[in-house]
């Protein structure tokens, strides 16, 4: 009794009350924010593993096989990759894809940026214009492609009719060897510039107005303000748009399939279209997988180079 009284007097825990159990590592982990974060990431992670990483790994395995879907596969080693070197259609498709990418991406970027700058200059009812200009991006490619097929009809299509008004005899667009790819690019730029426009509008809104005021006080012309203030501070948006556009352009498929089916000749056969034909029309799964991996490598290298360039060209600080 004397001891208990003494203990109580010292503020110690009464003997009858058990001290709280010391939580184990698992308990601590379960209660941590990291656990919560992982749990919330889990659906995306499972999705990534099942639908992205898994197929990439499967493609890597299949690329080593000779497999026509129905017969048992046989090991082909690196034979499918060796075939790429002597396959003219593959190189044509790669060239067409590069042509599409290196023309459509800068064009899309310019149109997006130009539109964003116009909209950003105090245009009234900007939300309406922004929504209207974003509509093509929100519309599915298949529908857009069918509409553009009609627009491109050589004799009385809208495009050539409009050109005719200013005395230009328009080409046969989708069946012309020289104009089929530019026709696809034009349609793709129209379809996708809205995405870049929204990104640029967000970037422009984040630029502090004080910088422009300071530049004006220093006597900067509008062009100098644009070059020295807008462009550097917009560089993260430009970088993001370029990276995503390049990746998307290397995967161009649906509009080419619907509007030209790769023709005339193989002038608009893109790499993904050729991969699809190889895998699902020619039943050559191993070779298609090898092509996919090469495309993956191309995109990875180009994206890597863009990230390297980012260090010098992209400015995240004011």
């Amino acid at each position, binding site marked *: 009794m004397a001891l208990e009284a003494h203990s109580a007097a010292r503020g110690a825990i009464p003997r009858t009350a058990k001290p709280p159990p010391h939580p184990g590592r698992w308990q601590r982990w379960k*209660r941590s924010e990291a656990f919560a974060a992982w749990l919330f990431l889990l659906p995306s992670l499972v999705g990534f593993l099942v639908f992205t990483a898994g197929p990439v790994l499967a493609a890597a395995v299949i690329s080593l096989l000779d497999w026509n879907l129905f017969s048992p596969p046989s090991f082909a080693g690196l034979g499918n990759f060796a075939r790429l070197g002597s396959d003219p259609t593959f190189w044509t498709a790669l060239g067409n894809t590069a042509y599409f990418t290196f023309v459509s991406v800068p064009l899309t970027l310019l149109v997006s940026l130009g539109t964003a700058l116009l909209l950003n200059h105090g245009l009234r009812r900007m939300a309406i214009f922004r929504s209207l200009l974003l509509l093509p991006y929100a519309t599915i490619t298949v529908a857009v492609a069918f509409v553009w097929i009609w627009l491109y009809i050589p004799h009385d299509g809208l495009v050539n009719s409009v050109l005719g008004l200013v005395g230009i005899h328009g080409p046969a667009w989708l*069946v012309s060897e020289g104009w089929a790819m530019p026709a696809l690019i034009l349609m793709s730029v129209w379809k996708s510039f809205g995405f870049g426009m929204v990104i640029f509008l967000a970037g422009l809104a984040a630029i502090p107005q004080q910088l422009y005021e300071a530049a004006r006080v220093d006597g900067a012309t509008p062009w100098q303000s644009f070059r020295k203030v807008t462009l550097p501070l917009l560089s993260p948006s430009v970088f993001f748009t370029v990276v995503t556009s390049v990746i998307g352009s290397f995967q161009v498929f649906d509009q080419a399939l619907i509007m030209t089916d790769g023709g005339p000749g193989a002038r608009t056969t893109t790499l993904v279209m050729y991969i699809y034909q190889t895998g699902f029309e020619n039943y050559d799964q191993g070779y298609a997988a090898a092509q996919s991996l090469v495309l993956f490598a191309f995109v990875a290298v180009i994206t890597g180079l863009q990230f390297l360039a980012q260090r010098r060209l992209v400015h995240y600080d004011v």
Partner: protein
Amino acid sequence: MSSTQPARPAWLSPRPGRHSPGLGRHSPGPSPAGLSRRALLRGGAAALGAVAAGGALGGCSAGPPPGTATWSMWSSSPQEQAVWDDFGRYVERRMKVRSVSTLTPSEGYPTKLDLQLVSGTASIVTALNGWLIPTYASRGAHRPLDDLIADDPDFDLSDFYPAIRSISSFGHKTYAIGFDVAPTVLYYNRTLLEKNGIDPPSPTEPMSWEHFSELAVELSRKPDQYGFTCAPAIDDLVSWIYSAGGNVMNEAQDAGALHEPEALEAIGFVVDLFVKKKAAPPISNLVTEDALANFLQGNVAFMQNGPWQVVNVRKAPFEWDIVPFPAGPAGSRPRVSGSSFAIPSGVGGDELKLAWRLLKTLTSTGALNIYARAGRNNPARRSAGSAFTPPPRNLGIVQDILAGRLPHAGGHPFDVTTNWNRVRQLLGQDLPRAFLGQVSVADAVGGLTTRLDVLMRQHQDALRQAGG
């Protein structure tokens, strides 16, 4: 912590008065609404688990129960859908089992079927376009039916036209049973011919190429009026090649034959109608170019097509009919094509018995009567032929040609290889440039001959592997 830091969500706020070692401020606690982080996480995890389990169960339990008559077919319009619905009801009435049809638009049908066959989820009976039968048969995707036919005294194969029996066979084995078969014919716009003072062509005697070309050119003299239309694709071109005595491949099927004079003459004849004589509507694109749509506009005199388009041409706002395909140097020998039902290789045991019963039902005279009565196409069975009735007035020539009753108008089975997809792709890529006037026929064919030879050698390899 800066005073401007945004407030934490309530459910992440620390629970007051509870000792939480190692967690500090981030320990779970009840929100004002009473929802703790742990409760939310538990709820979220449970919901995720339920979704995953539901998905897994749903995936595992997908598909009708055993004993269901499952069959796959392409279908691209409500009219086609109606016919297949009637088929389904017929199957249920006759077989006293549930019928489940998987209908897919025709463009995507082969790809979907491939994936279903590989994943073992295909129906027990699948429809096949005739030109795909060697492709599937040589890869072992479908089973030969000869044993089932031999064991079934009720099944009379002789009721089917020889052409569809040939189309449905591979390596002297029957891999499928047909449901339609027909030669390509020539549709003509009677109203347009009358307007131009031209008598309708004979329904029994094919026009010569020369006469046909003269008529086509004559009818193209007026602005926005054309003599002829067809698709700039091998499927249409091949009828001219056969009628010239040529083929896509040689007789041994080990080399291409498009560079032979007969084939070059045929391709040149059609290309000239487009490029030099301007007797065909100009090609505006290579994907949706549609000969039928051109014909239905009413300003085109002749269209080559199969009788499967009869049902669509019946909507035309003008008088029209069909006549035999024009006769070239080798006569009138248009492509004869057809479609069939087959049984995937993976079907066995009791399911195989059900599949065979289903296949017999789907290709029975009763079912094909439904098909022909709806005007879909000429039925593969002679006994169902009377259900495919006019209009047009000359519809009977389809069966006359198949039966060899017209002395100067015949047909040629569509000769295809085990890799016809690739051959089609090659020709589809290179030949249209000649139709567009971008290269000469000789250059177009010359540019693809080596690759066509390679494909023919690969076809031979596939034949050897299938035989061995």
